[in-house]
């Protein structure tokens, strides 16, 4: 196996290992989001868009600086997007040997400038205060792909496979397979993300690694820094000019004269070294006059201005979009009432400046409540996470979303702080509530509320006590909305009213200032576990009785008949 395949395999395994560890319970102190922060575009784009530098964004810059020494090693060996596309292309058998003429640097040059334009658009957008990192960052794209497509599909397949295999294994020593249960995940937008990857793979029919060669803005960033790296491809005098290296180069970095290399395109995959029959190619340092000046990037000034202009115009469009606050008229942004951000999410504008839509928080969320959105927050909010309480509640004993967020769009909060990071308030849709509307006996919302924020009080004209939400006790966790037995839309829903979004400072103090009291319900004798309310499938109550209860008013369950 070639060296590159080994490094690619190792880094992909590392990437996937960290990806799988991004879950609750969270392995403390482990930077599971490291790969995302290795992408210099993630770091640079975030720093520029948010006008704020944080130390955890350093890894990408270090890696970028290393390109001055070693070239685009990242692209050829580390980037999981590149490896994933390699695997997909191989599986789809897109790679065919390119004849020399179409794969030399000169012949394949048509599209490669695009990636610089992509980079410019994104950086200009960031300069305009709008993060478009999610559109082009390979690490954001590939993490989103694994989180929203590969992971849920793999879990579903695993479950199907278990159903098939476990009966067969029942009389072997693997009989315990019958008891292996796999949590399933569901996501919005998954099909779209999958389609994007299908398209990227299909483009490999045009050129191998089409994405990496022509579109990847991170590749462009590395290219700018590796125009003349210290360690680079060199060809000695034994070269016969046979052209094998040109045909084999996945990024068409070699000129028609095979001794000449475009180092900004070279991803140091070392294929040219291994295919050379004369062993004329090697990588090493070149001293003095032997170092030729780097090839020029084929970009007209007009195109550069166009790209920069598009980025700025996009930023301008977004900043004048309907979801932006209008100074003096209405300083709060117009927001959908159900755009419930994860607990600890920065104030909306700052949040969107940082969120790179990688999907790591959605992957890690144990209850599956975090979902990507389409256009609920406008075009600028596409793929960003919101809570969907009907699908799952925010687990009381979990703060994993903030721990895995690579850019600090969701703050990394201790549990006690997270429990005070109110995401909204529940309200009762009385016209569908079983108690309010049909006078049935149902207590589910009260029974599942971890904070005792639902109170049942008698009102005139109702046989049964009816539910009220105490807003100052409600954190918006969504247990009530999740478990409400009404079919379809819940009769108790969480809206963003009362959410606390802080750039810095303590949520505990802020909630005290607002007069909120978030206290987890009393535990019983023998002690309820801290995670009692955290099971995705838990239902402390099992729904209302269908019939009205004759024992109503006595406080006894409907199953008991009084004499």
């Amino acid at each position, binding site marked *: 196996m070639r060296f590159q395949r080994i490094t690619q395999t190792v880094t992909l395994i590392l990437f996937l290992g960290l990806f799988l560890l991004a879950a609750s319970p969270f392995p403390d102190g482990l930077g599971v989001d490291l790969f995302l922060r290795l992408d210099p575009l993630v770091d640079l784009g975030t720093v520029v868009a948010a006008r704020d530098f944080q130390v955890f964004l350093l890894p990408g810059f270090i890696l970028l600086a290393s390109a001055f020494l070693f070239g685009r090693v990242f692209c050829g060996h580390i980037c999981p997007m590149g490896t994933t596309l390699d695997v997909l292309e191989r599986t789809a058998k897109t790679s065919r040997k390119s004849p020399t003429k179409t794969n030399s640097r000169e012949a394949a040059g048509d599209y490669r400038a695009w990636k610089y334009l992509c980079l410019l658009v994104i950086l200009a957008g960031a300069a305009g205060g709008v993060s478009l990192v999610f559109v082009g960052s390979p690490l954001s794209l590939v993490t989103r792909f694994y989180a929203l497509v590969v992971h849920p599909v793999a879990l579903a397949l695993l*479950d199907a496979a278990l159903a098939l295999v476990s009966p067969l294994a029942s009389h072997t020593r693997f009989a315990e397979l019958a008891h292996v249960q796999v949590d399933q995940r569901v996501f919005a937008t998954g099909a779209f993300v999958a389609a994007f990857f299908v398209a990227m793979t299909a483009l490999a029919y045009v050129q191998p690694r089409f994405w990496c060669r022509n579109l990847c803005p991170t590749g462009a960033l590395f290219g700018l820094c590796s125009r003349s790296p210290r360690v680079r491809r060199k060809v000695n005098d034994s070269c016969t000019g046979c052209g094998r290296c040109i045909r084999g180069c996945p990024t068409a970095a070699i000129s028609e004269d095979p001794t000449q290399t475009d180092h900004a395109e070279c991803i140091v995959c070392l294929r040219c070294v291994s295919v050379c029959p004369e062993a004329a190619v090697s990588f090493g340092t070149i001293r003095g006059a032997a170092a030729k000046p780097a090839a020029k990037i084929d970009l007209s000034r007009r195109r550069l201005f166009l790209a920069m202009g598009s980025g700025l115009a996009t930023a301008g469009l977004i900043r004048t979009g309907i979801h932006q606050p209008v100074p003096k008229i209405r300083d709060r942004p117009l927001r959908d009432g159900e755009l419930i951000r994860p607990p600890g999410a920065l104030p909306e504008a700052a949040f969107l400046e940082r969120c790179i839509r990688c999907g790591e928080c959605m992957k890690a969320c144990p209850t599956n409540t975090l979902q990507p959105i389409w256009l609920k927050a406008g075009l600028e909010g596409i793929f960003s996470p919101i809570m969907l309480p009907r699908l799952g509640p925010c687990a009381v004993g979990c703060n994993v979303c903030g721990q895995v967020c690579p850019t600090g769009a969701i703050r990394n909060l201790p549990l006690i702080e997270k429990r005070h990071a109110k995401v909204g308030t529940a309200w009762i849709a009385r016209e569908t509530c079983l108690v309010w509307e049909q006078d049935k006996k149902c207590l589910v919302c009260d029974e599942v509320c971890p904070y005792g924020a639902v109170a049942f009080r008698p009102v005139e004209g109702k046989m049964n006590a009816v539910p009220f939400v105490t807003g100052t006790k409600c954190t918006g966790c969504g247990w009530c909305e999740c478990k409400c037995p009404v079919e379809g839309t819940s009769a108790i829903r969480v809206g963003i009213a009362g959410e606390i979004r802080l750039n810095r400072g303590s949520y505990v103090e802020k909630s005290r200032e607002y007069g909120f009291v978030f206290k987890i319900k009393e535990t019983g004798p023998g002690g309820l576990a801290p995670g009692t309310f955290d099971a995705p499938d838990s239902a402390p109550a099992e729904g209302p009785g269908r019939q009205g209860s004759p024992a109503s008013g006595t406080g006894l369950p*409907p199953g008991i008949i009084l004499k």
Partner: protein
Amino acid sequence: MSHKPDRREFLKTGLIASAAMLSAGPATLLGALDARAEELPDLAVAYGRDPAKMARAAVEAVGGMKRFVKAGNKVVIKPNMSFASGPKAASNTEPAVVEEVARMALEAGASRISVLDNVLHAPNECLSLSKIPEYCSRVPNTTVHNVQAKRMFKETPVPNGKQLRSMEIMTEVLDADVLIAVPVGKSHSSSGVSLSMKGMMGLIYDRRSFHSRYDLHDAIVDMCFVLKPALVVVDGTRILSSGGPGGPGKVIPLNLVIASPDMVAADAQMVALGTWYDRKLEPHQVRHIRNAAERKLGRSDLQNMSIKKIEL
């Protein structure tokens, strides 16, 4: 697709058939000839302080585990372990009782013992806090599992059901030879009490619909005609007198264990011996027990039954 059976296949089917006849024959014969059956009580209540000893004494009094479990049988034990709370909270069965029932089944020759429930709270917390896996790990061939995945259930018809036509039951329960219920005595916000009958809902995939779509009390009885345990051991070491099924609520120590082959009788006895929501109740005051007796699932007329009391 039809084909002539080859010799190997013929022999195989023949062997299976004769084995089935041989094993079924003696069992039915023994059952009929078992003179002891006449003298055995309908129900036994053991009083004491040691949960394991009480469980054993109560089961011995109704004929011993060998009456219910034969050598090589696959046994399923259904305790309560649906809630993430410790034994003192009384939402789950006392682990020592479950362990002792498993041990008796093993001694009677069970080949495999599965302790199963479809839990409500976070599965890992339920299992670890209930301490049932911890205790049962001391009994060989015994495993404890939370069963929730859809593939582990099988649609099963409910003949003559008043509310249910069919339900999805754990495949492992359907495959088992013997089902033993080991519920804790506890109150329940919908059904009044949750004992062996109500506890069978822990072997069903979709129990929510019992509450929301059906008349719960009739549905429980329908279900128990299909899921009828051979033996019921009710843990009355302490009961959750109110606040059930999940608690927290009033926990009252009763220091007793009930055993009976009749699930309705066992439940009725538990109701009569306990205090529920600060009052005493007659068995027929609990709807699903009354319905069960009326529909002849079992007996609830305690006054006409032979009940053996054991003091330890």
